[in-house]
């Protein structure tokens, strides 16, 4: 067991409270900073892509994990961020201005979608966002003047003060910087009053309302924030892809993002990151596994989606708290080694709970 003994107030609200955490995260950051020295350009590109997905998953986590609003259409905000960014670059807006503006643009779109969220929730909201993302995909395909339609839109190379960010190493550092900034901003926001209001709305709207939280405002705000962060990821994604077509932002991307937050564990930023890493590595893992399968099974298309479904099903059934929950259990096991009790993490099972007449 570990008992906290605080001698200064600052220790009470440090993000990393223990020396071990500080050393661990410091080492992780050092490894990430040193990665370009070791990795090949291809692997560096993949790592940058994983970082971009981490940002997008953190955006969705704010909405689904912390505010309890389900969105099955977050690919729409990735698309809006990506196209907005590419369009602004083409109009001559400097990169450092276009990147946050793309996030703001996606945030405004999130505001528009968030307003219906006041009226509908639960499954209905999931369907509204699903329909919205399909509509956005079609509109992008048809609005040739701005988006290039199905022909696609080339993305200009990012330039900061004349220096190109096109090659893998600077782009990787850019993604890392944005990911760390987003993580710090969200981690701090979620433990502020706003973050508590999010969790309050998630756990009980009636109780939150009774405590003086403007439920409608919080919901719309969470939507805008989540969409904005996701749009930021979209802007980086535009550079990763280099050439934007509507096929890159289909329902499949939305579902991948949902998979990341659910498998990672709802209600934790660490979960969003772990989930994003797992889901983006899954196709590679499947390709690797194919080597060990019989010839007939390894040639088949569809194994990848089957494995993704299987992993999701196993997590929903056996570990509803996701990778983060698994990590917390493992840590508790190590810290309390001989005294670990499984019931610490037991979930109370509720039968007969209907959401029909809430």
């Amino acid at each position, binding site marked *: 067991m570990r008992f906290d003994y605080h001698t200064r107030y600052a220790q009470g609200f440090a993000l990393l409270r223990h020396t071990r955490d500080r050393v661990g995260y410091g080492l992780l950051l050092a490894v990430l900073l040193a990665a370009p020295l070791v990795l090949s350009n291809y692997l560096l590109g993949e790592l940058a892509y994983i970082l971009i997905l981490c940002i997008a998953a953190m955006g969705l986590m704010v909405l689904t994990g912390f505010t309890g609003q389900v969105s099955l259409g977050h690919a729409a905000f990735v698309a809006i961020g990506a196209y907005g960014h590419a369009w602004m670059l083409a109009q001559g807006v400097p990169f450092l201005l276009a990147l946050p503006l793309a996030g703001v643009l996606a945030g405004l779109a999130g505001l528009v979608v968030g307003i219906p969220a006041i009226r509908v929730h639960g499954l209905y909201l999931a369907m509204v966002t699903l329909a919205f993302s399909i509509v956005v995909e079609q509109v992008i395909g048809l609005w040739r003047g701005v988006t290039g339609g199905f022909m696609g839109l080339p993305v200009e190379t990012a330039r900061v003060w004349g220096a190109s960010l096109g090659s893998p190493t600077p782009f990787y550092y850019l993604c890392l910087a944005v990911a760390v900034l987003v993580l710090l901003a969200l981690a701090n926001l979620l433990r502020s009053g706003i973050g508590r209001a999010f969790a309050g709305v998630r756990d009980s709207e009636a109780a939150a309302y009774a405590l003086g939280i403007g439920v409608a405002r919080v919901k719309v705000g969470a939507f805008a924030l989540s969409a904005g962060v996701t749009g930021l990821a979209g802007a980086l994604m535009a550079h990763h892809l280099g050439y934007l077509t509507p096929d890159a932002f289909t329902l499949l991307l939305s579902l991948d993002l949902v998979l990341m937050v659910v498998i990672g564990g709802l209600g934790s930023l660490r979960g969003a990151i772990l989930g994003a890493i797992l889901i983006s590595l899954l196709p590679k893992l499947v390709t690797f596994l194919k080597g060990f399968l019989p010839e007939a099974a390894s040639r088949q298309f569809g194994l990848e*989606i089957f494995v993704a479904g299987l992993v999701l099903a196993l997590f929903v059934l056996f570990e509803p708290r996701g990778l983060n929950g698994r990590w917390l259990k493992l840590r508790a096991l190590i810290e309390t080694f001989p005294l670990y009790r499984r019931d610490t993490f037991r979930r109370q099972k509720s039968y007969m709970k209907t959401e029909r007449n809430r």
Partner: protein
Amino acid sequence: MTDSLALFLQVTVNGIAIGSIYALVALGIVLIYKATEVLNFAHGDLLVLSAFSAWALIAFAGLPFWLVLPLVAAGVAALAYGMDALIVRRIAGQPAFAGVMLTIALAFMLRGLVSMGFGTEAQTYPTPWSGQSLRLGGAAVSELSVVILAVVLVVTAGLWLFFTRTRLGVAMQAASQNQLAAYLNGVKVKRLNSLVWALAGATAAIAGVFMAPVSLVDTSLWLVTLKALAAIVLGGFGSLPGAFVGGLLIGLIEQYAGVYLPHGFKDIAAYLVLIAVLILRPRGLFGEAHGRRV
């Protein structure tokens, strides 16, 4: 003038033909939702599985169409029963979101298995009515569309009779209204829920077997689930007659949008309707007025 009238008639007929398939898919989803409060995203993949199985049985085994239909329906019904009894039942009592995620996972697995088992190429198979059409007051109607509409009407009528006239159907209604009360009256709720899944699986199989010759046998057939969701929302969530009428309306709206609205509206008309209904009148056309639902 007559030209535009003929066009209108033709479009209406097409809309009803497509809408009846949406209606059948929507019915299957609503059945499961009413019984177990799980929104089944795997429904479309059951449909894909039935279409591919029917293709394999007709094209390779050479079985006649009328034998294939009950075979596939029985097989998919058994699969759906198993899906509920072994997997979906475990998350009873958890939030609706868990059900959505689990059925999406099942949908992924089914889709993966289908593309591993049958390949990813689009296929087609003949039916007794392929390529023949009737004239109906100036509109050309393919016989297959008429048969589909008839089948959908028969299935709907059969479901209605089943739910109002048989012990099992009434027990299912009771269980969907109040599980505990039904259980205390001796209804085997768990088994009934699995049977509802089987019933919904059978409707998915019928929809799949009849839909495949109209479009193609392809894994993208599952997208019909999304259209069916629009139909369910339009009709009022959890209402069986609503799902039927909603399906027909979505089919009609889509066809009219394709002809009378600018290019591109046809593909998104159903989703625009879904968004508009949810924002303006969340209980849909036939939704129950009491309480706030979902």
